């Protein structure tokens, strides 16, 4: 089976204060349809750069990306992006924010409205439809951000530390909801995080990246059976084993850039 998203030799150099900074080098990865891949790595290893390139915000300096075997450039309507900041439009209510991508697509009758309502209910935001973002908590805003991308049904969703700014409990709740949504919708997800536990809990495979210039150090399949219990996963033996292995790899990278 050929990969849905195929990344080959991707690199990115920036010009910063007259010197060339190599942010990312020779990144190659195949992601299957319906797969949940998480990426961990030390700060500044070009994780966000990778996502920005995948979504098409700017071009790579080298390498190529194939979607269903065809090379892609620029923005692709099949690839959604959930950013770390919720980036909701402050003048739109929660419901209108989630409807935004559907409005951009010219709407599709009543079906989209119904889907949006269902999504809002599913993540526990029913009753807040007509609230403005400033009236919602950080966790609620981030949930709205996620279902805004789900609303228009892109096949791949990139997530850049979406739970980074949230407190520990809210994080667990949202991880749980994300797993529920994912098992229902079977999206292909590439998820960046700083949090190794989060990476293991969510993933089919965990990718460890090296420090700058970021490249792929290892790819580890996570054999823990699903559905997973985000609240108790750290009790399991399988979890602890893979955690120790990945932490060793990560620690070496963090130590290298310190």
């Amino acid at each position, binding site marked *: 089976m050929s990969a849905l998203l195929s990344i080959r030799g991707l690199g990115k150099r920036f010009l910063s204060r007259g010197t060339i900074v190599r942010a990312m080098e020779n990144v190659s990865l195949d992601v299957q349809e319906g797969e949940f891949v998480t990426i961990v790595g030390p700060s500044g290893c070009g994780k966000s750069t990778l996502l920005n390139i995948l979504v*098409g915000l700017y071009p790579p300096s080298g390498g190529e990306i194939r979607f269903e075997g065809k090379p892609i450039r620029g*923005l692709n309507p099949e690839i959604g992006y959930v*950013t770390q900041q919720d980036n909701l*439009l402050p*003048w739109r209510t929660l419901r209108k924010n989630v409807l935004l*991508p559907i409005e951009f697509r010219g709407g599709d009758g009543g079906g989209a409205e119904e889907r949006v309502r269902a999504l809002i209910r599913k993540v526990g935001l029913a009753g807040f439809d007509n609230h*403005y973002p400033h009236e919602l908590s950080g966790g609620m805003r981030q949930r709205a951000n996620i279902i805004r991308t789900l609303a228009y049904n892109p096949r791949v969703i990139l997530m850049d530390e979406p739970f980074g700014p949230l407190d520990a409990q809210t994080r667990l709740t949202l991880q749980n909801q994300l797993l529920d949504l994912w098992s229902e919708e079977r999206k292909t997800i590439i998820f960046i995080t700083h949090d190794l536990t989060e990476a293991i809990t969510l993933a089919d495979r965990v990718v460890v990246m090296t420090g700058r210039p970021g490249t792929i150090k290892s790819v580890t399949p996570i054999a823990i059976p699903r559905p997973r219990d985000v609240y108790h996963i750290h009790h399991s033996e399988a979890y602890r084993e893979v955690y120790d292995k990945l932490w060793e790899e990560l620690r070496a990278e963090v130590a290298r850039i310190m």
Partner: protein
Amino acid sequence: MAQEVQSRPPEEVLIPAGLKGLRLLLWRIRRSEELRWVRVALLRLLFGVVMVAAWEGVSGRLIDQKIISSPGALLEAFIDLAGPENPDGTLWTHFAYTMENTFWGYLAGALLGILFGFMLAEAEVIAQVIEPFIMAFNGVPRIAYAPLFISWFGIERQPKIILVLTIVFFLCFVSTFSGIRSVPQELVNVARILGGRKVDILRKVVLPAASPWIFNGLKISIPFGMVGAIVGEYIIADRGLGYLLQRYNNEYFTTGIILVIFILMLFVVAVNQALNWAEGRMLRWRPTGQTGQEAATPN
């Protein structure tokens, strides 16, 4: 949120009639958080009354009435000048003339200013090229252009309207331009990723994000625009509040001057209130405390 609390009607309370009832009512007003606005309104009224009374008391006793006039004289002059038997038009015809000129200049200036603000904010290079020219033109006090406008456009309405227009244009232009420039790039990027085309993004992201700035420009333009109309009339005109100011000045008619100033004050306050209300409604999405900033006053 705070507004909601304020606008909620006070709890139904039984106030007994008579002096006892009055005392109870006053006590409520003093203590209750719900009736804060009543307290503020009453204190404002008191402040106004004290000011007027002090003015009346001082005038003709400590300071010559020719210099500071008096509330009584003001009222007399108002009744006289607003009356229909005035030879060169009543106060209202002058008021209407000034306001009409302000209105047309404001309308054209605001529309052009917002339009150019949008266009230049999208055209990086052109904006950089003409920026110093705009700043140079705008940096000169507008009254310096008045003689030119008069020689180009005559002594009727046109030079006054143009003067208003140039003032309003720049205020609206600058606020629109900087409003659009300050739209967070992340919001625009997200909208692009979500599938927005350029027009959609302009309409649904850029315009609303810039609207508080545009609104502010529209607000501060009102008093400044009126300055334009009045200065234009002050230089040469046979009508308008500016003309009245100039004539009363020549006649040493202090009461008349103060009367015109009061009319302008009342008008600006009324318009500002209306705009704050409209802004509060249109920008309901903003967290409270950010709406309804006071508009700048003309200098």
